[in-house]
């Protein structure tokens, strides 16, 4: 049966997360972006809500309640507070979900309990590469089998790198042996590896991006990084394509939340800012822009939910995830740009939020798997 109503538990989660976003995240969003330092108290407090832990397996002490729809609802509310802080809060899932889905018992027991400790431990996932022609399905970072080890070689960027993390998941192009390792691989054969942050040959360079100022990210160089063969997760090409879909659904949900934030602040501003003795919201030029924002946000959200629901049913959701992803990438930019425009000159000033929203959503055309559901 077609139904658009979150269940009782989801409604409670939405309410809780929204309040948290409103009271804890939004007030520090601007400062966090300016300083580039994640607000430790806020991320810790969010960690106590157990949003990621609730979705991790029960065998390792999690709640065992993994749902892409619930994940999307959470991501939207958190990102409504602030995108960078939302991605920080959700980062344990970047390590936790791939390990939960494709790790062996030893990997799960080693890595998952730490993510659910009372202290916040961030996760990390390296997938995007610093190239104009990056293709997420055909990474140029290679993993070459050499005896009982894999040798990782290549570069990654947009890798979340919050303090306190121990491991990251790396998506690479797997090759059978060192013998055939010349030139870039012709076809994609995706593989995922769990790599310790302090692996020899792994160099991390902090990066500065147009947006996401509050989320520390790095560019990584893998210079013949050797990892034991057992660190390869048991995930084939199709599995990792599904992981990419999960990243797109999570990010699309966060994009909807960011767009909603931009829309709401510009709507409130339009009701108090006056021209010629009347609030600008009484002018059709502004009112219709706001109406279009509201319509596009709702439409995009439903596409995200539909893709998430398909994931939860275990279906191939790649087409729906792509539609949702494309739509959000497009409309979030349109909405955030519209929000800056509604604010006029003030929209360009860093005292107000729309310029931050605009810088953040401009990244959606290159982001992949900065969050997972």
């Amino acid at each position, binding site marked *: 049966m077609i139904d658009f109503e979150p269940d009782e538990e989801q409604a409670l989660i939405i309410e809780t997360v929204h309040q948290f976003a409103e009271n804890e995240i939004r007030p520090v969003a601007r400062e966090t972006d300016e300083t580039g330092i994640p607000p430790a108290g806020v991320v810790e407090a969010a960690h106590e809500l157990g949003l990621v832990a609730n979705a991790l397996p029960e065998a390792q002490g999690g709640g065992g309640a993994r749902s892409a729809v619930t994940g999307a609802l959470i991501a939207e509310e958190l990102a409504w507070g602030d995108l960078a802080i939302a991605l920080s809060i959700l980062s344990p899932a970047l390590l936790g979900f791939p390990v939960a889905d494709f790790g062996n018992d030893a990997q799960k027991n080693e890595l998952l309990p730490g993510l659910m400790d009372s202290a916040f431990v961030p996760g990390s996932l390296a997938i995007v590469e610093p190239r104009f022609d*990056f293709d997420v399905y055909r990474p140029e970072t290679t993993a070459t089998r050499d005896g009982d080890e894999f040798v990782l070689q290549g570069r990654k960027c947009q890798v979340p790198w919050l303090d306190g993390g121990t491991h990251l998941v790396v998506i690479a192009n797997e090759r059978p042996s060192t013998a055939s390792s010349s030139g870039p691989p012709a076809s994609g054969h995706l593989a995922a590896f769990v790599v310790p942050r302090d692996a020899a040959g792994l160099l991390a360079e902090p990066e500065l991006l147009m947006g996401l100022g509050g989320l520390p990210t790095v560019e990584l160089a893998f210079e013949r990084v050797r990892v034991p063969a057992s660190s390869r997760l048991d995930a084939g090409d199709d599995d990792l394509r599904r992981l990419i879909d999960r990243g797109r659904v999570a990010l699309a949900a966060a994009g909807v939340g960011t767009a909603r934030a931009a829309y709401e602040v510009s709507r409130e501003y339009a009701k108090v800012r006056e021209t010629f003795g009347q609030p600008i919201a009484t002018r059709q030029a502004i*009112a219709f822009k*706001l109406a279009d924002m509201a*319509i596009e946000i709702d439409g995009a959200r439903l596409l995200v939910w539909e893709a998430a*629901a398909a994931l939860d049913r275990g279906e191939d959701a790649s*087409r729906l995830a792509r*539609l949702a992803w494309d739509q959000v990438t497009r409309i979030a930019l349109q909405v955030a740009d519209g929000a800056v425009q509604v604010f006029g000159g003030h929209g360009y000033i860093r005292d107000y939020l729309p310029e931050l929203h605009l810088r953040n959503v401009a990244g959606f055309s290159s982001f992949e798997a900065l969050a997972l559901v």
Partner: protein
Amino acid sequence: MAIDFELSEGSKLAQAHYHDIALKQMRPISRKYDLREHDLPVEWVDYWWNEGRFGTKGRSEKLTEGFITICLQAEELCWGDAGLYLRMPTPALGGSAVSSAGTKEQKQRFMSKFREEGGHPIWGAMAITEPQAGSDAAAIETTADFDPDTEEWILNGTKIFCTAGEGASTADGGFVVVWATIDKSAGRGGIKSFVVMANTPGMELIGCEKKLGIRASDTATLRFDNCRVPKENLLGSAEVRKKDPTKTGDKGFKGAMATFDASRPIVAAMATGVGRAALDFLKEELENQGVAIRYDAPPRELTAIERDVIEMEAELQAARLLTWRAAWMMNTGKRNNLEASMAKAKAGLAVTKITQKAVQILGPVGYSKKLLVEKWMRDAKINDIYEGTQQINQLIVARRILDYPSAMLR
């Protein structure tokens, strides 16, 4: 309750059923009645009256999903042909008006003939628009004066753009719901709706419009010249409220406007059907040419056509889901005024662009009348106009999200 995007079994059956009708009964005569603009599409009208309207009979009602299923029907049949859909012998918008503002007795009196077997095809219609007043429905000039001697209302005025107006005004048993003012000084508070039975003396069919698209649909001009209707045919109360009637319990104007909350999702679904017809055809044609849409290719590697198609699909699906949400709210009894307008605004514009893009991508073939693509482009455009233009729906959405009364945003 939980978020769910799976249609019920009943809805899936209905979808397949109406798709089959669209394919077998509508598509084969689609071009014929586009070319023969004012002819009655006899084979379609007879089919619907004798068979089509009973199509889901015997199927458990519990399995269907109320307004969602109605939207599915509208989408499938308009995938078949939007003009023929509008020419179906049904109560249509007239029925919506009676349902939302009429008494139980009125519903029985006006609607039962549409359910009875046998007889001849009849239609319902709603007449609101006038030569000087379209979107601003409160500015209509048609008058209704009460004659206390005969206890009749006397209607005078001219209505245009009345969908199904030819059938509804001339086939005995059908009816036209006419909006008229009983007190011009009261503004919206004076506007009431009246059921005028077909062939009532004083109601004259002036003619049908020649249109860009939906040519199989009879878009009528009706003149009312001392047209008398019994007082029992007034929908809602005769009381004139000087206050804003949308804020009171008056079922007159409010009831009439509430019709749109029910009809806009259906129109949005109709739009989606036309858009999907064009998109389905485009994708099929591309596939025949060996062009597969790569949903997993990086954006920079997509061809312009692939990019267009993916955007068209996303836009169409967003429209469809907004429509289903508004319909689902009808089912659950939630007020859907905002969501109905959102769906209609989105769908109207989305399919206008989708069908135009399809013509563009298909080049001379898309422009040719050998195929139906050019027709779908012409048919699609009406969805951005009738049942509240894009701008009227934006206005409604804007008022709602800003929490502004109409006086603050016009």
